[in-house]
């Protein structure tokens, strides 16, 4: 059965890019979520193309694929992208210890969706000769990282004890028991890569935003004048580690902030990527189900006019298929009372305590 022509064409482009002297530069463009080459593709097809490109990067310039691989391994559920990301990690010369936890967690996530994987061609017709799966690629990556760090199974006991049995058994079987112990299990998760960003274009504050209760006000009215956390999401997101988790984290943040006496002094909002579908009724249900308590300073919003301009102003990493979003990054920002973006999570999942600490600092005089 023929693979759709558009996918075949994209795969040929990736093959040419991978063979070029500047492969790293040419291939990294495939990991921009808003890249126009993905416009109109369904999200599974976007995953196929990205995986193909990521596997090409693993063969040619793995260091250039660290960002994309990290995002997949931290939040992905699909076998193809996870396997390709694992190949990038396995090819790194100096991998970080953080990868071990992330790889084991990814092995647990992919158990329910694993399948055979290959990246020498993009078509999906059955290939009995293939034996690689996402799990086997994650195992190889774990072993490669352990090898690079000189670790043995005992050094990673805590991680392996919590990983799926087949994954742990494969790793334990492959790692040498003769190496000196270098404990990796009490590793400290590095803080999210908070990064300051450029100021927003002032016109964005006039954008009308309707909330879950059908009330419309400008973004400026909702967000300016107090420290704010602003996230982006959509209710049809199928990855529970992205939008659902983000909104649930905002709800947890709201509760923790209230306990610290910050209610009314901060704003917590999330804007949908899919304003045509996410009606106020859907926003209300989605937020309520995840524990948000709506108020004048907390809610879920849809941009009713000027979504494209707002999307550009916030420089959102989101792409669209014919019906809805086909790919997006996790986007959680913290804004100063004057609207400057003072932090963003740079695609990493938000953490309640990290955001709370920032909010407390922003609300503390001096």
């Amino acid at each position: 059965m023929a693979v759709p022509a558009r996918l075949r064409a994209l795969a040929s482009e990736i093959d040419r890019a991978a063979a070029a002297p500047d492969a790293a530069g040419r291939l990294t463009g495939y990991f921009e979520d808003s890249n126009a080459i993905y416009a109109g593709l369904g999200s599974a097809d976007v995953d196929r193309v990205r995986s193909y490109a990521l596997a090409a990067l693993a063969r040619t310039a793995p260091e250039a694929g660290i960002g994309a691989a990290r995002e997949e391994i931290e939040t992905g559920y699909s076998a193809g992208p996870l396997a390709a990301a694992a190949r990038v990690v396995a090819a790194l010369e100096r991998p970080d210890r953080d990868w071990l936890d992330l790889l084991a967690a990814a092995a647990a996530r992919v158990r329910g969706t694993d399948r055979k994987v290959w990246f020498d061609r993009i078509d999906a017709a059955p290939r009995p000769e293939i034996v690689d799966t996402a799990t086997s690629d994650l195992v190889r990556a774990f072993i490669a990282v352990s090898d690079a760090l000189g670790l043995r199974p005992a050094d990673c006991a805590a991680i392996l004890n919590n990983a799926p049995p087949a994954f742990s058994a494969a790793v334990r079987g492959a790692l040498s028991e003769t190496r000196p112990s270098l404990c990796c299990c009490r590793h400290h998760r590095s803080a999210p890569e908070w990064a300051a960003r450029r100021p927003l274009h002032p016109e964005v504050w006039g954008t009308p935003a309707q909330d879950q209760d059908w009330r419309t006000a400008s973004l400026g009215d909702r967000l300016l004048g107090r420290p704010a956390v602003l996230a982006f999401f959509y209710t049809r997101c199928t990855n529970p580690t992205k939008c659902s988790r983000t909104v649930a984290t905002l709800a947890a943040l709201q509760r923790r902030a209230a306990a610290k006496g910050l209610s009314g002094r901060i704003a917590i909002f999330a804007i949908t990527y899919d304003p045509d579908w996410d009606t106020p009724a859907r926003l209300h249900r989605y937020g309520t189900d995840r524990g948000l308590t709506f108020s004048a300073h907390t809610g879920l919003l849809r941009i009713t006019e000027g979504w494209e301009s707002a999307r550009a102003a916030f420089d959102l990493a989101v792409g669209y298929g014919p019906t809805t979003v086909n790919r997006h990054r996790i986007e959680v920002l913290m804004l100063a009372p004057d609207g400057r973006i003072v932090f963003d999570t740079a695609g990493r999942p938000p953490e309640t305590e990290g955001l709370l600490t920032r909010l407390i600092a922003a609300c503390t005089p001096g």
Partner: protein
Amino acid sequence: MDIKDYRKKHEDDVAQARASRSAHGAPEEFLGRREADADTRAKMLCKMRMTSRNLGELIPLFLDILGNKSEAVTVRSAALDMLSASEFAGKAFADYRPQVIDAVRALASDKSPTLRKNALEYLAQQRDDYARDILTAAVTAPEEAPVDQAKAIQLLSLDDHTNAADLVRGRFEDLSETAKEEAAYILGTDPTSADKLSEVMVDKTVRERLRRIAAAGLKALDLQRFAERAGVVLVDRGDSARLKAALVSMAQTARPRQNAVVTSALDSAVETARSRTRSKTLKSAAARYFAAQRDKA
């Protein structure tokens, strides 16, 4: 099917399943009865009790049967059913999943139409890339497809993140009546298809069932337009009471917000339809509609 008949059939199915559970089969028994007819062998497979302990023994057996082209279709189909069910039998299934997907992908091009359909149903539920490629091709070139066009569209609709809406909207007029109904379900997930659904909802040249599906889709996408179109149908003497009753029932749970003009026009259209009809179904739908509006007020 009448609701009473449906209930009876369901109760019979449950009773039959209970009875068959009391006599579990074993792989040895199945393998030792190669001379038995296909139906008996299929039933023996379906009686096998799966637990997390014996999955490692049963899944390879089911995979062997699935790949055995000389085995009867009913037996291979039973093996596929058991593989689908084994996903719920324990965590051990996850270790076999890649092999199962591979085996079912191979089945998608089997010469048996039943096996092809069952295989594609399973794979579509898994959001499988290969199945999506086949189903997409089945919509664009139905004459060469392993399943019929309507089934292909129905299976593509299981994932609202594909480009299925684009695919069916562009060739809607060329689809068979049954395929159009499946397509209308997909269009109901696509905000850019509100115009198309709005058009179909009032189109008297198409089957009424298609119009009802289009109405439900439009209601999900754009309440105000749904209300406007429903108003048009409700006062049209040429449309059936059955269609009108369906629209009133849809409107009952979704009054458009913040548009008094549309709301009062819809109330008036429901009242007109109620007063003109002898249909008990439409009259009771209208009564429920007005009762719900009073509750909301």
